[in-house]
């Protein structure tokens, strides 16, 4: 049940908020947990027992780690947990990929054997849950966090529905205190609604509109893609993925705030970054920091030689790419970003970068990111290379095969592309006025305008758009 669905907006959310606010303080966690379980039951009913099992296992392992008398025993418990979690992730997320690759490999070796395999359905949130479970065990092991005091609290941490679909990735140590006690004042609720509505509008009004251009471009067959459409498609997807993903994060943060939680920010105007290294401090921040703390540092971080550090960086990005999706396109995307970050760490390149004006560095970084998104969005490596070729090789298509402008660039799509670009890039030109996400607060005049004007308008227009996008009447029935 996506947050940007009518069922969530007008069914699930009002029901949750009504039940949550009417419940006494001591029962609020129980209400949140019940609705979170309901959310899973609706979206991934067969996965629910797995999540519950893993939650119980993790809870027990956390206590076992804390109680273990020796570091060796502690490490054994942590390792056991990590193996279980990564195996679960491997099965649900990567099994289809490995089976397909193995079949192809066997075919290439002349062994034509069809594997009797029912494709596994990817359950919602499995990637996020896996990382949260691992970080919980590692933090307890490191002494950075205490084991959960109650199983329901730990399950709520894992399954809290605002972050189930697209994160951000929680850490137990950040939420533990909030799970025990938090404020539910009206200001937070207003701010939460505000953040949620703006995120909804980013996803529905901007991301969905520009997706028309991106989808049309990426749907073109090789040889029928013009350079104009390729660039438009890459730009549109660059904005689509940002407004989609950051919109979801805004919605998650807003929902959390409505329920009294404070989640960490996940985006910070990433397209104003002046390098790929900086980009990764602004894009999907909860993932970047997770990878730093639980992969890069355990790999040795920058404690070894310069060469080893660069290798560690590259490996982290490579695995990050694979985490994003079970396909070679994601692996290449991860390697591509890793290669740029490694390059930026080379002294000569760093010196060259430093000499360029910031705006030019922002433009170059954006170009690198846009090309990377082509690999992320394409369904095959060949398709991605063809797309990039069309962008830089001046791809052309016979007029007869070219897509109609109306299929990819309506006036609305064009307007949303411009609006999206302005919102995403504006701080690059005026960093002095960067104020972060729009805050609906009753403490300032601007906040009032947002709360009483922008927020209701965003909600109404988003619901209207969603309703209309599902409505396509005919003049008459043909038969």
């Amino acid at each position: 049940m996506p947050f940007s669905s009518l069922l969530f907006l007008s069914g699930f959310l009002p029901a949750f908020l009504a039940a949550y606010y009417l419940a006494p303080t001591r029962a609020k966690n129980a209400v949140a947990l019940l609705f979170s379980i309901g959310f899973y039951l609706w979206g991934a009913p067969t996965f629910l027992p797995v999540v519950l099992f893993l939650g119980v296992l993790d809870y027990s392992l956390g206590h076992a780690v804390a109680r273990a008398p020796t570091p060796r025993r502690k490490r054994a418990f942590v390792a056991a947990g990590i193996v279980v979690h990564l195996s679960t992730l491997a099965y649900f997320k990567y099994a289809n990929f490995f089976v397909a690759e193995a079949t192809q490999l066997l075919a290439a070796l002349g062994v034509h054997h069809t594997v009797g395999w029912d494709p596994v359905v990817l359950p919602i949130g499995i990637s996020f849950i896996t990382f949260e479970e691992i970080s919980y065990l590692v933090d307890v092991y490191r002494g950075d966090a205490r084991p959960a005091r109650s199983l329901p609290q730990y399950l709520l941490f894992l399954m809290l529905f605002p972050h189930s679909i697209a994160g951000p990735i929680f850490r137990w140590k950040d939420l533990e205190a909030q799970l025990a006690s938090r404020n539910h004042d009206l200001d937070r609720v207003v701010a939460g609604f505000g953040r949620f509505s703006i995120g909804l509008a980013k996803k529905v009004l901007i991301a969905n509109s520009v997706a028309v251009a991106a989808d049309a471009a990426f749907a073109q067959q090789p040889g029928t893609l013009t350079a104009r459409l390729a660039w438009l498609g890459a730009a549109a997807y660059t904005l689509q993925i940002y407004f989609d993903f950051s919109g979801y994060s805004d919605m998650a943060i807003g929902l959390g705030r409505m329920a009294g939680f404070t989640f960490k920010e996940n985006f910070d105007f990433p397209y104003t970054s002046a390098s790929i290294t900086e980009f990764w401090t602004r894009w999907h921040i909860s993932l970047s920091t997770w990878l730093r703390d639980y992969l890069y540092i355990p790999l040795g971080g920058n404690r070894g030689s310069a060469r080893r550090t660069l290798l560690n960086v590259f490996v982290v990005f490579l695995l990050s790419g694979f985490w994003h999706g079970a396909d070679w396109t994601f692996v290449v995307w991860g390697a591509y970003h890793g290669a740029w970050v490694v390059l930026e760490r080379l002294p000569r390149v760093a010196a060259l970068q430093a000499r360029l004006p910031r705006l030019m560095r922002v433009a170059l970084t954006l170009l690198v990111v846009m090309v990377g998104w082509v690999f992320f969005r394409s369904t095959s490596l060949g398709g991605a290379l063809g797309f990039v070729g069309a962008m830089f090789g001046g791809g052309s298509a016979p007029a007869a095969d070219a897509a109609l402008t109306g299929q990819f660039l309506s006036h609305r799509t064009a307007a949303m592309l411009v609006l999206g670009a302005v919102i995403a890039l504006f701080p690059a030109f005026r960093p002095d006025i960067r104020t972060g996400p729009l805050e609906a607060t009753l403490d300032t005049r601007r906040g009032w305008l947002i709360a009483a004007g922008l927020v209701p308008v965003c909600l109404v227009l988003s619901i209207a758009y969603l309703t209309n996008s599902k409505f396509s009447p005919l003049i008459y029935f043909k038969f």
Partner: protein
Amino acid sequence: MKKLAATALVALYFAILALPLLNMRFGLIEEAPLLGVTIPALRPTLTAKEVAKERYQKAFVAWFEASYGLRGTAVRLDSSLDYYVFQEAPAESRVRVGSGGQLYIDEDLDYFNRLALPPTQEFAALAQRLARVQALLRARGKSLVPILSPSKTSLLPADVPSAWRRELGEPRPSEVVYRAMVRALDDAGVRYVDARALLQAEQTSRGVEMFTKRGRHWNALGACLVMGSALRLAKTLAPAVAFVDPDCTPQDAPTLTIESPELDLLRLLNVWHPGPLRDAAPSTVTLPEASLENAPSALFVGTSFSVTLVVASERSRLFESFFLYYYNKTAIHHLGGESGHPVDPTTAAWRDETFSGDVVFYEIPEWYFPSTNSEFLVQIETALAP
């Protein structure tokens, strides 16, 4: 004060979210009607098995979205934003907005931008079958009048929105297809009404558009002219039958309501429309009333264009009775009445409906060239074969 304002704002947000569900359940506010035909979604039955397989969830979402409270208002708000601010139709719409507010349906635009040409033998096969059926019926004192109905894009190509126009040079493939159809009919010796050529000529000579601006079909004047031409051909093919030749004198364009057939594409957009609507072309024509005792009976086989011909004929009582085989799938006896029954050539009822009339008007829509109703010709030829 601040607490009161915050409470009011939260209540407002909550109301925006919950009102559709409340209206869906309790009908608190009258819904703005949604115009156009949609396929109804049924509420699914809840079972554990269906939930586990996630089929229940999908069906429930479809039902929920189709039954969503204040859906009409929401659709109109978003569509009006597209129509009045962006001067276009929603992306999912089947309608596109052309120059001067001329509306087109996607089917016509697909035809206008078509690339592929059907094999020429298909045209010849259809034309030869038409010639045989025409001869078979003529031998029985009845007439088969094929009518080539034009696409709106053929009559009004200049208003096609540039974003939906593929530059294909001249002649466009759609033009080549049309010419191939006409040549095949001529070669086979078929007598037919080329409504496209007729209306193009009338449009030029009269200086009036023959299609409704915000509708899909030919307007009342266009329908009358086509009907007149078809009746004159019927008279030639079956001289014994008393056909009335209509006099298509246009009257002033009256004010239209959103329910008017002339606005069927505007209806699909579901926008708020300010005040009375007028169409540039006349929407009514004067047709003499035929004497019912001598009026012939007719069978129409075709699309919604045939429906407009039936409407024109019915208004003027040109026929004593009629049947309409809509896409040769549904037999309709009374417009606006019952929904009809399936066309089934194996039944006695089909024989009655098909052969009791004096004339068969067989529509060949340009955008479906070479044929869409061709199975009717096979059925009738089989039935008439010695």
